[in-house]
């Protein structure tokens, strides 16, 4: 399933009247679009910060400084710190094999890499319970050796890796396919070894796409709820990530604390969108710089 979102920020062109609408129609369409976005996007975003700060900064900071909140923040950071680098290495490796070489079943492999996007997060959690849970394939072996995966941190990390699995790969594969491998082949002929080719030729070419994938991967890793919820066991201070902490507080009617915690995640989302726009702007600029000026490409 594709969620590849390429945005070409070409400013709306000044068009002759035969290809645009009367002023009134334009204003009306813009008005309806903005009203829809306001109802479904902007109001919820504002509500998070409003509800979090409703009782002032005192209760806000108190909710964030609470030991359970701190340990949730730590666990969220640890989870992302393991899941994102692993999926990064996988993404680069998969993109290298798929973009630089021809082999049978390539298209099928790309579809398989996309698979986690089409699986419900709840099912992503469930499948690890079936393998590592008390009644699962390795359940008795794990309990005999006193290893906990489900209702413990390893399960949370595994579920997070699953749901963020395709992000880096699907960003890099089309990028590296479009770039081809002429530069790498030239480096090879000049005597560079594999690592030199990757570090000095490939990486500089893909760094913005790589960053883009990592940003999206990280946002999802820190914000995942459904999959983590199934495998976590919701043990406060131990297996609670930030999104799960939000849920617990909310279900206890500690609304201010819930929204305070949620505001951290909303900030993360805003930072993600900001970085994403920056990277898009940067790659766009780069493409324009590299093309001859008389032939700019969107």
């Amino acid at each position, binding site marked *: *399933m594709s969620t590849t979102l390429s945005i070409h920020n070409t400013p709306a062109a000044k*068009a002759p009247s035969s290809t645009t609408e009367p002023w009134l129609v334009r204003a009306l369409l813009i008005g309806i679009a903005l009203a829809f976005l306001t109802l479904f996007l902007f109001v919820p975003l504002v509500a998070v910060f409003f509800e979090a700060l409703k009782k002032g900064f005192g209760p806000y900071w108190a909710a964030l400084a609470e030991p359970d909140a701190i340990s949730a923040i730590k666990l969220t950071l640890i989870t992302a710190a393991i899941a994102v680098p692993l999926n990064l290495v996988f993404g680069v490796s*998969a993109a290298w094999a798929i973009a630089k070489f021809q082999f049978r079943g390539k298209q099928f492999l790309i579809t398989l890499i996309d698979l986690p996007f089409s699986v419900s997060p*709840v099912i992503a959690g*469930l499948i690890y319970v*079936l393998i590592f849970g008390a009644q699962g394939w390795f359940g008795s072996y794990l309990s005999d050796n006193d290893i906990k995966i489900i209702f413990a941190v390893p399960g949370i990390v595994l579920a997070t890796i699953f749901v963020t699995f395709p992000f880096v790969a699907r960003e890099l594969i089309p990028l590296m396919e479009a770039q081809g491998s002429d530069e790498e082949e030239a480096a090879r002929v000049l005597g560079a070894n594999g690592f030199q080719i990757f570090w000095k030729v490939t990486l500089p070419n893909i760094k913005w796409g790589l960053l883009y994938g990592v940003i999206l991967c990280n946002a999802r890793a820190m914000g995942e709820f*459904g999959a983590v919820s199934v495998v976590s066991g919701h043990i406060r201070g131990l297996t609670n990530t930030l999104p799960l902490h939000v849920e617990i507080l909310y279900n206890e009617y500690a609304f201010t604390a819930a929204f305070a915690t949620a505001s951290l995640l909303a900030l993360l989302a805003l930072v993600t969108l900001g970085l*994403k726009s920056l990277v898009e702007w940067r790659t766009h600029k780069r493409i324009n710089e590299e093309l001859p000026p008389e032939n700019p490409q969107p």
Partner: protein
Amino acid sequence: MSTLSSGRRNVLPGFNISLGFTLLYLGLIVLIPLSAAFIKTWGMGWEGFWAVVSTPRVVASYKLTFGTSLMAASINAVFGLLVAWVLVRYDFWGRRIIDALVDLPFALPTAVAGIALTAIYAGNGWIGQFFEPYGIKIAFTPLGILVALTFIGLPFVVRTVQPVLEDLEKELEEAAASLGANRLQTFRHVILPAIGPALVTGFALAFARAVGEYGSVIFIAGNVPMVSEITPLLIITKLEQYDYVGATAIAVSMLVVSFTLLLIINLLQGWAKKRQEA
């Protein structure tokens, strides 16, 4: 393994190790765990499987999940097209910030979206209070589920239609206008056919996402069995009752639907690409 199917000898190193690692990681993280669900269900036999997935409560959850997902994807198709149109064709103050914010549902954790939507669409919420006097309850009813699913599916249609609209040749519209078509006719007969495949793809993506959605829905749904209980929640409920077999059977029924959707989306994207190149 041979690297030589392209005729020209590939001089680059690292094929075996990168493909090997890719397959190993894919197998360990995705394929083997997913197969666990199918193996577990296989053990139930067809009768056992059917007994679980045809109970009234499960069927009610399917109807709710697929019904609200279809409606949410339809709302997104209409308004997503409008938003994409406005962002590509018109220049107005704040356009670029709004363009960036369209991706918010991708970046905002679902649990945060869930509690925020519940707060504003509840009877005493910022938006819910305007509907309350007319006896319309949004939060804690299937209508609330529709709101949450519309939120999370919003970027899909916008982001699939937007690039196609940008690449659309203005000459076609000018030609239509010079042949005497008005704007509405031009839109129906020139623009809509060109963006059709992208629009259908965006619709399918939004629908597929909505079917599996859990985090944003459970806060706003009310979660009453037979009325406002979505299928992913039912899986969790069965798990909490240690009914692993039941939970897995429902999960497999959903996986089959998801994989079918994935196949359809792949075909749609191939179609859209062809249309765009033609």
